[in-house]
């Protein structure tokens, strides 16, 4: 049985610069320093972290973060904004792309990673499933986001943020979304789409207990054993260099290397009821989408629709194809994919830069 390395931080939450620079070192280590795979389990100080190619000033209300004494930073993996803190499990995982047992291609790799997390959540009595486009859900509500990057030739870095407990009000306070003008709507939109470990359990667990369950999930899926480890001197030096070059560097944090962000709202009266679409575009692609209104559907089906549209090119044919891949009769009572796409295109027409 293979032995992998475990870096587990329980003494204190890490700053964004500390946590992110350690994580970036994991993929370098498994590539250039011949390390076995490394799992890093920790918590961040209260903070907001955007994806590598997000516009941080469009994504976050920076002044509000400063008022709340929360940090903000940019990670090296893809995806959107995550709000971190002492009740959210932060996970970094470094593995060599040639490692036996890692799935083939982008989809395969995320599938295998999600299995480890699903097995871990299973040990807490929670049945989660993998939603393509890289989330884990419980009955249609997101419980964890997955993102990844290949920063080196052969090293992959995975990031996961797993909600153990969470203050949903905080999302509306610190994130810029098309829902920002509608605070109550923002809260109810988020509460319909997110869940936490402790919301899914009768008895609450600590982040440390979740760490142990996740570690066990990895051991079972990959058939390995973890050994508690710490960085070598070479790894620490690399981590410090990355911390300085990136996570303490305003040029990295406020990087302008990102697609243009536009947001728009589309409203359409249909036989199914009023449709309201809150759309955020990153360049040509949907970055996030919230669909509300007075139509009949389930939370699970609505999340399925929104997930299918996320990261899809915002063009009619692409959107209809994405919806047709998951559509079933009366997924939204009395609505067709074409009508929903009409509402989305209205939101796109109304797009403005926030």
């Amino acid at each position, binding site marked *: 049985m293979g032995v992998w390395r475990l870096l587990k931080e329980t003494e204190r939450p890490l700053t964004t610069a500390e946590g992110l620079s350690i994580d970036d070192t994991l993929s370098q280590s498994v590539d250039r320093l011949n390390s076995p795979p490394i799992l890093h389990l920790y918590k961040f100080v209260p903070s907001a972290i955007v*994806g*590598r*190619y997000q516009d941080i000033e469009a994504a976050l209300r920076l002044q509000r973060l400063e008022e709340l004494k929360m940090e903000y930073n940019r990670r*090296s*993996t*893809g*995806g*959107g904004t995550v709000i971190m803190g002492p009740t959210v499990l932060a996970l970094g995982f470094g593995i060599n792309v040639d490692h036996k047992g890692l*799935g*083939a*291609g*982008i*989809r*395969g790799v*995320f*599938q*295998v990673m999600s*299995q480890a997390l699903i097995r871990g959540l299973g040990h807490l009595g929670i049945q989660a499933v993998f939603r393509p*486009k*890289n989330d884990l859900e419980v009955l249609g509500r997101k419980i964890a*986001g*997955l*993102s*990844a*990057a*290949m*920063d*080196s*030739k052969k090293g992959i870095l995975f990031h996961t943020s797993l909600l153990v407990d969470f203050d949903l009000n905080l999302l509306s306070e610190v994130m810029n979304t098309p829902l920002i003008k509608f605070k109550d709507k923002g809260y109810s939109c988020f509460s319909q789409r997110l869940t936490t470990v402790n919301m899914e359990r009768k008895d609450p667990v600590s982040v440390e207990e979740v760490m142990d369950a996740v570690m066990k999930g990895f051991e079972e899926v990959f058939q390995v054993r973890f050994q508690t480890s710490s960085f070598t001197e070479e790894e620490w030096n690399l981590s410090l260099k990355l911390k300085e070059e990136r996570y303490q560097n305003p040029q990295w944090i406020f990087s302008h*290397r*990102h*697609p*243009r962000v536009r947001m728009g709202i589309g409203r359409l009266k249909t036989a199914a009821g009023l449709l309201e679409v809150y759309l955020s575009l*990153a*360049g*040509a*692609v949907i*970055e996030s989408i919230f669909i509300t209104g007075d139509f009949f559907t389930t939370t699970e089906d609505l999340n399925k629709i929104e997930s299918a549209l*996320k*990261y*899809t*090119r915002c063009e009619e044919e*692409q959107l209809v194809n994405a919806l047709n891949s998951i559509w079933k009769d009366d997924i939204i009572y009395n609505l067709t994919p074409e009508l929903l796409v009409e509402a989305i295109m209205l939101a796109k027409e109304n797009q403005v830069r926030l």
Partner: protein
Amino acid sequence: MANIFGYEMPDGLYYNEEHSWAKVEGNKVRVGMTDFFQREAGDIVFVDLPEEGDEVSQGEVCGKIQSRKWIGKLVAPVSGEVSEINEDLEDDPTLINKDPYGQGWILVIEASDLDSELKNLMQGEAVAAFIEKEIKKAEEEKAKAK
């Protein structure tokens, strides 16, 4: 245009195992990503490119491509100096999806060792064998996931 197991992989281009294509234009090489790549990756969110004048090396990472929440690498198929980048990708990186061998080209390299380095790239039957191997790997993973 060669169709290999349903993927467009044009004849006359060179390919590497990191899914980029290379088209020789005199001593310059135009570079893009293959149809196999764009279908596997999904719609491209952003392309982070080197700058004109940057030196790149064959087989080394010279840029980044984001699709969904994955940030993958653009690997230089040949060594040389970047002489041109496709600025249209800044407004619409999904050109890589819509027209991977035409408007979705990514950069042009003024090659420094073309004749020798082309021998390290794939053409013809080797491309078919590579695609078949990639499809088989993906199918094995799908079967395991069921």
